């Protein structure tokens, strides 16, 4: 049986060659010095371990205080949201004022362009184009009997 490892060990069909990579002149001669310089600079920049031991609890305290103050001065306002939910569940009407103000805020934000374009679409609408059957169908679909009977009252 042929030993498969033989062809795995075979040399490549392309010739052996160097990489062709080069370095700047004097690179290796000066590498040691540059490394030493970098290590000296880094050891000066880094705060000493003993300083960090003292700083850490102070930093933790400062971070905790910052979080507390943020929450105290700008609490998350869940009141509006819970009011809306309350309205749906219990019929609490006190939230309606708030929703009205939200609606008016929204409508004020709707651009004038979109509002007037909607109006112009309405103006173009010609009521005479509605057939009696079409109107009857609309009323049956969209209005209650009570509303229809009392429409002219």
């Amino acid at each position, binding site marked *: 049986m042929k030993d498969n*490892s033989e*062809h*795995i*060990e075979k040399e*490549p*069909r*392309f*010739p*052996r*060659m*160097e*990489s*062709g*990579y*080069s*370095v*700047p002149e004097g*690179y*290796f001669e000066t*590498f*040691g010095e*540059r*490394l030493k310089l*970098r*290590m000296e600079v*880094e050891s000066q920049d880094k705060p000493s371990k003993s300083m960090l031991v003292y700083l850490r609890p102070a930093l933790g305290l400062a971070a905790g205080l910052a979080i507390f103050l943020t929450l105290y001065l700008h609490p998350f306002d869940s009141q509006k949201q819970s009011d809306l939910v309350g309205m749906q569940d219990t019929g609490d009407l006190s939230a309606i004022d708030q929703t009205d103000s939200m609606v008016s805020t929204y409508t004020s934000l709707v651009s004038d362009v979109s509002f007037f374009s909607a109006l112009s679409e309405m103006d173009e609408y010609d009521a005479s184009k509605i057939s009696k059957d079409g109107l009857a169908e609309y009323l049956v679909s969209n209005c209650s009997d009570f509303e229809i009977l009392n429409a002219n009252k």
Partner: protein
Amino acid sequence: MIDKDKELISDLKNEGKREMAFQLLVKTYQQRLYWHIRKIVVSHDDADDLLQNVFIKVWKNIGNFREDSSLFTWLFRIATNESLSFLQQKKRRNIFSIDGVSDYLVETFESGAHFEGEELQKRLHLAVLQLPEKQRLVFNMKYYEEMKYEQMAEILKTSVGALKASYHHAVKKIEAHFEGE
């Protein structure tokens, strides 16, 4: 482990002899480590940074070196990991796909800085840079650095069989690349 390395490690762990020993370590291994890193990351500037990082790591961690492998193996393992981590970081920051790393390396190579080889050497590099990471690494170590499989197995913590298979596949792909040109 050879006696010279044992003595060097002992001096590196000795506060009074540490600096001298470290200078000797750098002088002894800088070139071999540099070329190993350079073939992985291609760029001279990146290789220079990474080589410095390797020696700084050695300086900081020599106390943790358990001497269960040779000094050479340990150094090369650090250099390989630093280089591969560097490429991983590049991949993450630039949203490279796996193929994208090859594209990055080819682009770096073709920028031409610090390459003085001939056309055939260039073609070989371009073929190697298209290989998957592991095959590229194994090919570099076997073909260019002429390492023994057993040595590579220690450095890369993988089996000799797996390395032979990687090298075989790498060579086949490169041969096909040349034939297809």
